[in-house]
């Protein structure tokens, strides 16, 4: 069976005043149908750029230099802006943004915004009344209070958690095959976070959708995801089934990330150093300057990903 989403060798660079900055350099991931894939990495590692590249909403200064993004068998990189709008965004790929407080248009009723999406992307032959009915039943399923008149209200009349539910409803409105969620719980308090995560997992199983879940929290990955893809400095460093990667992490960066997790770490050590600037990437392994196992070869040769016994693909010269 072909995967829902497959990204191979994706390279994206940004034009800056200081020259071309390579933000994504050989990122790959595969999402199978009905599964949840967690994309993990520190701030600035290229997670948002990856999402934007998939949806074709990179800023004007960005260029895709290489690679392919295959969604349900079609390479999205050859789609025009118009085709993406008509066939992909909002209809076959739903999006759940990071900050529910800032992502809804403050001066339009929730209904106007959700119906705007359905207007262009719902199956042909459905009427506005059908759309309203569909949205109301989704809002009821998502436990939004007062689902019958929620569409008539404005975003500021809802709490953060409720707004995230509205955005989830928007993402699901046109029955997409893939939903991309960009750290959808970071702006919420811990209890609300937990509820939203449970809800997402239920919806994935219930509606037969595939979910690409971007986060920096490995705890969330463990709770929600089937597979995981760890990104460092614009490169996939380790990917595979969640149990394999989290139980026996092979890449030193994954190990370091796990060691930092508050539930596991003994002290708040963190990872020494910072993510290298996309303008001055190390020539060899990008994690080498911060790695505890560095050998001379790490500074010169960029390792390629190899399959390990655990079942994970790891980009490191140390055979695990």
């Amino acid at each position, binding site marked *: 069976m072909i995967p829902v989403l497959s990204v191979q060798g994706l390279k994206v660079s940004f034009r800056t005043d200081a020259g071309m900055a390579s933000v994504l350099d050989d990122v790959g991931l595969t999402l199978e149908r009905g599964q949840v894939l967690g994309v993990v990495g520190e701030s600035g590692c290229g997670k948002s750029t990856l999402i934007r590249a998939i949806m074709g909403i990179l800023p004007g200064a960005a260029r895709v230099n290489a690679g392919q993004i295959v969604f349900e068998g079609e390479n999205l990189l050859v789609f025009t802006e118009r085709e993406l*709008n008509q066939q992909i965004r909002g*209809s076959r790929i739903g999006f759940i943004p990071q900050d529910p407080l*800032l992502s809804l*248009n403050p*001066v339009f009723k929730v209904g106007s915004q959700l119906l*705007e999406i359905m207007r262009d*992307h719902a199956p042909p032959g459905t009427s506005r009344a059908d759309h309203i009915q569909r949205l109301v039943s989704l809002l009821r399923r998502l436990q939004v209070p007062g689902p019958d008149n929620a569409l008539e209200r404005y975003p500021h*009349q809802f709490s953060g958690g409720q707004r995230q539910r509205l*955005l989830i409803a928007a993402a699901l409105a046109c029955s997409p095959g893939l939903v991309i969620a960009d750290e959808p719980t970071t702006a919420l308090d811990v209890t609300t976070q937990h509820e939203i995560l449970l809800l997402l997992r239920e919806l994935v199983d219930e509606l037969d959708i595939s979910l690409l879940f971007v986060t920096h929290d490995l705890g969330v990955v463990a709770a929600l995801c089937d597979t995981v893809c760890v990104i460092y400095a614009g490169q996939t460093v380790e990917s595979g089934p969640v149990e394999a990667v989290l139980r026996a992490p092979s890449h030193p960066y994954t190990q370091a990330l796990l060691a930092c997790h508050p539930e596991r770490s003994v002290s708040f050590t963190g990872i020494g150093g910072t993510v290298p600037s996309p303008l001055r990437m190390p020539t060899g392994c990008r994690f080498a300057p911060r790695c505890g196992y560095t050998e001379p070869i790490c500074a010169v040769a960029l390792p390629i990903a190899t399959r390990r016994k655990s079942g994970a693909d790891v980009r490191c010269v140390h055979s695990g």
Partner: protein
Amino acid sequence: MILRFVLRRCALAVPSLIGLLVLTFVLIRVVPSDPAAAMAGDAATPEQIAQLRHEYGLDRPVWEQFFVYAGKAVRLDFGESAFSHRPVALDIAQRLPATLELTFAAMAISIFLGVPLGVFAALRHNQWPDFALRMVSVLGVAVAAFWVAIMLQLLFAMELGWLPLRGELSVSVPPPVRLSGFLLVDSLLTGRFDAFGDGLAHLVLPAVTLALGGMASIVRFTRAGVLDTLQQDFVTYERAMGYRRMRLIWRYVLRNSVTATITQIGLLFGGLIAGGVVVEAIYDWPGIGSYTVNAILTGDHQVMLAVTLLIGVVYAVVNILTDLVHGLVDPRLMDRS
């Protein structure tokens, strides 16, 4: 909810109107020229002046004069113009529609050109259309209206002969029956399409002259507003969810971007009525502006007072309307009050 909002704003306007009454009253008291002497003329004897002073209550205690003045102002009784010898309120009522017609026309031009140009400049941020529009809008603010007026007259009236030079209607065209007082409205209502066409031709140059400054500032504020909105998270989200570009910009982005523009339009409206004075004088437009110029030149106190109060009331009303439009555009404001 909207009614409560409006009533609240109206109540808030009352103190400023009272303040305006006090201020105008004090102003007449401190003006060096003696109103009674001005009315009586140069040849008057001291007895005649005293007689006039008594007639107008200028010999009564100050506070009493104020209450008489305020009471009359509320009843729109501004006495007679010292020169037309007609009630000032009547003169104003007759001339106000012409000014409003000119002002609305200028408003319409500056909004319907200024807003789209501002959006266009923002979408072409830091490209040549943006630079060109920025330069033009700086010029629009900087260039004096009287200069523009004369240049337009020279070019379009004198040189090309496309548009009439001055006035509201050609002498050869009999004015339509007066219903609302608005020339264009009345000529439409009475089916006088010849008067409508002629009136419209007369309106173009003064309206364009008056519109330029306002349009320039509307372009700038709209451009800044749109640029700011385009940075917001919800715009990224709307793009990601496949909103059509045209609807995204002209509906979802624009409505978030016009707060400052609306404030600006409100200020402009008051400013246009006051600023129309020069334009009306140059184009010989039969409105409040030319009337006021005449009153100032001849020292007609009653008229100056009434016009000052009128402009104050216009500002107050426009402020209420501006607040209301703000509330309608951004429901968060309505909920907060």
